[in-house]
């Protein structure tokens, strides 16, 4: 299991797939999240990702551990980039190897869905008109009672 948060461009996607593959795996799935040029009807120029580093790393490992316990998968790797990204940049790469593809597809999907729900990473969009805005997102963790 390899979970990493980086500030440099994610470039070696083939290497990531090689890294998780073992000879008993019949499927290697790679998911990449990439920065697109639009969101909610607005034209996006770039994104800025912020992270609570230690907790985000720990949460990524938790997610992969859970997925490894639930699915018949081999190795997994998640690399999330933070900082300033532009359209076309890979923000996250998730590689999953498994003996069979069903488990690999499910595991890959679960990892990205849980990442989006639970990992303390935030994105701020910059639009082509110059405005910047922190995106709303998911509320992770336990429910909180309202604070008086």
């Amino acid at each position, binding site marked *: 299991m390899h979970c990493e948060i980086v500030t440099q461009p994610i470039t070696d996607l083939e290497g990531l797939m090689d890294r998780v593959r073992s000879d008993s795996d019949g499927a290697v799935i790679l998911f990449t999240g990439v920065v697109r040029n639009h969101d909610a009807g607005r034209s996006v120029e770039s994104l800025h990702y912020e992270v609570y580093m230690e907790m985000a790393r720990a949460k990524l490992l938790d997610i992969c551990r859970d997925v490894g316990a639930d699915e018949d998968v081999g190795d997994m790797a998640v690399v999330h980039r933070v900082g300033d990204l532009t359209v076309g940049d890979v923000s996250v790469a998730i590689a999953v190897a498994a003996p069979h593809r069903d488990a690999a597809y499910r595991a890959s999907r679960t990892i990205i869905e849980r*990442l989006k729900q639970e990992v303390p990473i935030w994105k701020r969009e910059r639009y082509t008109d110059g405005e910047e805005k922190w995106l709303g997102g998911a509320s992770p963790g336990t429910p909180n009672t309202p604070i008086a």
Partner: protein
Amino acid sequence: MKVKSLFFAVYRDRIGADELVLELPDGSTVADLAAVVRERAGGRLPEVVVTAVNQEYVSSETTLREGDEVAFIPPVAGG
């Protein structure tokens, strides 16, 4: 007791700091801390906020201890 609070993203922008160390009475809860922070921030922190203590998500009734690190977590948007 001293407790460190961390702020990220939109909360950091609103509060104007990424970190605050605050003195709290022993036995204070996360909710107590949030109330203090909210007042310091002129109310610019939501009434219901997700928090993590020492990097685990917790409920606001959680009791704090000396040296705890409390992160105020805005809605997350990774990936």
